[in-house]
C-alpha cells in the first residue's frame, strides 16, 4: 500500500498561469495577467519563486513546485485553460495570438511586442528534477511498508526488529526517506551494488533508508553512497573485513569540497565524538552492511574483540592545513573532486613525540611506533594509516619534505633484520615463517602505509590506525569519487 502514492493535485477551472519572478517574460506579461483577471475573474496564478509576484494578484505559492511538477510545466509563463478539472489548452511563453485564442479576450497587452519566448520552469531545473520526481511520483518508493501497532514505541520497535547497531536509530518514515533521497540525483531504484555478506542488491532507496536510521542529513547521502560502492568492491573485500576475527571495520576518509559543504570535522577531536556528518556517515555504511547485507556480530561477523570504530569510523582530511596533496589526489582522484577512501582499520594508537624538531628524528619516531604494529615480529601482512597531526606535519613542512620523501624515510627505517623476526627469536614463538627468510624484511608492502593530515592545531601527536590482512588476498584501500 503506497501510503503516499502522490495524487495529482487538480487545477482550478478557468485560466491558470504559472510564472516566476526571475523570468523577464513573466515580468513582461504582468499587466496582461492583471487585465485577464479583471476581464474574466477566473484566473489563478501559481508562482514558483516569490509568492508576492505578480503584485496584487494573490498568486498561489508553488515554491515546492508540486503543481508545476504534476502538470508538466516546462516553461514559464505557461497559460492553461481548465474545464471541469481537465486541461483543454495550453500555451507557453508570450504570444499575443495564442493568448488571445486561449483566453478568448482580444487586444491583450497592446504595448507588448507580439511574442517573446519564456524561461525554463524551475520544476525542470536539472538540479531539482530527479529530487522532485522522487518526491512526487509516489509509487517510486518500493520498500515494504511496516505498519506499527498503535501502542508500539517507534524506537523500541526498531530495536525489536534487529535493525540497530545497539544505539537508537531514527525511525525511517516515508517522509524522512523521501527527504533523504533529495540529497542525490540518482534514482531510488538504481542498484548501488551487491552488499556483503549476503550479496543482497542495495538500491539507492535502501541506502537512503539506512542513512535515515543512522541520523544522516540528505546532503550526506552522496558520501554514504560512495562509501557503499567502495565497500562492495572485491578490492576492499567487505566480506572478509566483516568475517575476520580481527577487530577491523571500514575506516572512511573523506576528501574534497564536500567535506566543508556538509560540515565535516578534520580538526579538533577529529577521530572522536561530536560531529554529526563524521559520525552518521560511518554509521550509515555499517547499517547498510548489517541490514541489507545481513552482516551481524556473532553471525558472519566473528570478531574476537571488535572495536568501537565498528559503530562508525569516518573523518575528513585537513587539506587546507596540510603540507601535502590530499590522500584522494595521491590515489588518482583529480584535485577539487570529492572522494572517499576506505581502509580496513582497527582502533587508534597515539604516537607521542614532543621533542623532535627535525624531520629525521620525527620519521624515526613514526618508524619505531609502526614497527610494533600488531606484533613487532610480524611484517608485510598488514597495512597501516598514519594520521599526522598539524604540529607534527609542521616539522616536515618547515624542512621541505614531501609526502613521498617522508614515506621513503619511514620505509628505510623499517627494514627489519631476520634475526628479530624468525619464529622463536627473542624467546617468542610468534614470528615470520622460514620461507620468508631474508637478510631483512620491510614492515610494510609497497603502498601499505597511508598518510593523512588531520587533527587539532595543538598537540605534538599523531595516530596510527592498524590495518587487516593486506594486499589482493585481503583488503586493499579503495577510493571512490563522490557523485551528486
Amino acid at each position, binding site marked *: 500500500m503506497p*501510503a503516499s502514492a502522490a495524487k495529482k493535485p487538480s487545477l482550478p477551472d478557468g485560466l491558470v498561469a504559472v510564472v516566476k519572478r526571475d523570468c523577464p517574460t513573466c515580468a513582461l506579461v504582468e499587466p496582461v495577467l492583471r487585465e485577464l483577471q479583471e476581464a474574466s475573474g477566473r484566473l489563478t496564478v501559481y508562482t514558483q519563486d516569490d509568492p508576492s509576484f505578480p503584485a496584487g494578484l494573490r498568486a498561489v505559492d508553488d515554491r515546492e513546485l508540486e503543481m508545476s511538477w504534476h502538470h508538466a510545466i516546462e516553461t514559464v509563463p505557461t497559460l492553461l485553460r481548465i474545464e471541469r478539472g481537465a486541461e483543454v489548452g495550453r500555451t507557453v511563453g508570450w504570444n499575443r495570438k495564442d493568448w488571445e485564442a486561449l483566453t478568448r479576450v482580444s487586444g491583450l497587452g497592446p504595448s507588448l511586442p507580439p511574442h517573446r519566448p519564456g524561461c525554463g520552469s524551475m520544476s525542470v531545473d536539472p538540479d531539482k528534477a530527479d529530487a522532485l520526481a522522487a518526491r512526487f511520483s509516489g509509487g517510486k*518508493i518500493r*520498500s*515494504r*511498508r*511496516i*505498519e*506499527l501497532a*498503535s501502542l*508500539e514505541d*517507534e524506537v523500541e*520497535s*526498531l530495536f525489536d526488529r534487529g*535493525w540497530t547497531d545497539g544505539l537508537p536509530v531514527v*525511525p*525511517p*518514515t*516515508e517522509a524522512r*526517506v523521501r527527504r533523504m533521497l533529495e540529497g542525490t540525483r540518482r534514482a531510488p531504484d538504481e542498484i548501488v551494488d551487491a*552488499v556483503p*555478506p*549476503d550479496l*543482497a*542488491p*542495495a538500491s539507492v532507496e*535502501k541506502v537512503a*533508508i*539506512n542513512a535515515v*536510521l543512522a541520523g544522516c542529513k540528505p546532503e550526506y547521502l552522496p558520501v554514504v553512497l560512495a562509501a557503499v560502492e567502495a565497500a562492495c568492491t*572485491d578490492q576492499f*573485500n567487505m*566480506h*572478509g573485513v566483516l568475517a*575476520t576475527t580481527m577487530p577491523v571495520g571500514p575506516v572512511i576518509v573523506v576528501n574534497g569540497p564536500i567535506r566543508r559543504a556538509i560540515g565535516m570535522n578534520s580538526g579538533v577531536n577529529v577521530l572522536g565524538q561530536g560531529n554529526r556528518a563524521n559520525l552518521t556517515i560511518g554509521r550509515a555504511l555499517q*547499517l547498510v552492511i548489517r*541490514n*541489507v*547485507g*545481513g552482516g551481524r556480530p556473532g553471525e558472519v561477523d566473528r570478531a574476537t574483540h571488535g572495536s568501537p570504530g565498528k559503530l562508525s569510523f569516518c573523518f575528513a582530511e585537513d587539506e587546507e592545513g596540510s603540507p601535502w596533496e590530499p590522500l584522494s589526489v595521491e590515489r588518482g582522484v583529480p584535485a577539487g573532486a570529492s572522494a572517499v577512501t576506505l581502509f580496513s582499520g582497527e582502533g587508534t594508537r597515539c604516537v607521542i613525540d614532543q621533542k623532535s624538531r627535525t624531520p629525521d628524528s620525527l620519521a624515526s619516531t613514526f618508524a619505531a611506533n609502526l614497527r610494533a604494529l600488531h606484533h613487532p615480529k610480524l611484517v608485510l601482512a598488514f597495512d597501516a594509516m598514519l594520521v599526522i597531526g598539524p604540529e607534527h606535519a609542521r616539522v616536515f613542512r618547515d624542512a621541505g619534505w614531501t609526502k613521498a620523501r617522508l614515506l621513503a624515510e619511514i620505509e628505510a627505517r623499517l627494514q627489519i633484520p631476520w634475526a628479530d623476526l624468525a619464529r622463536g627469536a627473542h624467546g617468542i614463538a610468534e614470528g615470520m*615463517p622460514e620461507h620468508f627468510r631474508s637478510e631483512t624484511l620491510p614492515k610494510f608492502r609497497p603502498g601499505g602505509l597511508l598518510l593523512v593530515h588531520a587533527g587539532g592545531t595543538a598537540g605534538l601527536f599523531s595516530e596510527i590506525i592498524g590495518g587487516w*590482512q593486506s594486499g589482493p*588476498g*585481503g*583488503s586493499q584501500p579503495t577510493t571512490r569519487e563522490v557523485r551528486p
Partner: protein
Amino acid sequence: MTILLDPTSERTVAGRALAARPPSLKGKVVGLLDISKPRGDVFLDRIAERLAGEGAKVLRFAKPTYTKPAPVDLRHEIASRCEVLIEALAD
C-alpha cells in the same frame, strides 16, 4: 499510526534440510576443503589418512584465499563431485 520503510534486503532465507547422514563412509567420495589458513593442510592430511583407512575416496580442494568466500565454480565442483564435505579452519 506510524508506517516505516523496511531497511533490509527483504529476502526470505530458503530453508534447506540437512542431507541424511551416511551410515558409513566406505566407498563414499569425501571432499576436504582447505580454506588456506596456515597449517590447515597439516590437519587435513591427517583426516585424509583416517578417511582412506575407512575406505572413503578423498578429494582435496582449497580456496584461493581464506579472506574471501569460495568462488562459485569451486563450490559447484565440490557439490557435483562429493557426497560428503569437511571444511578445515586452522591457524
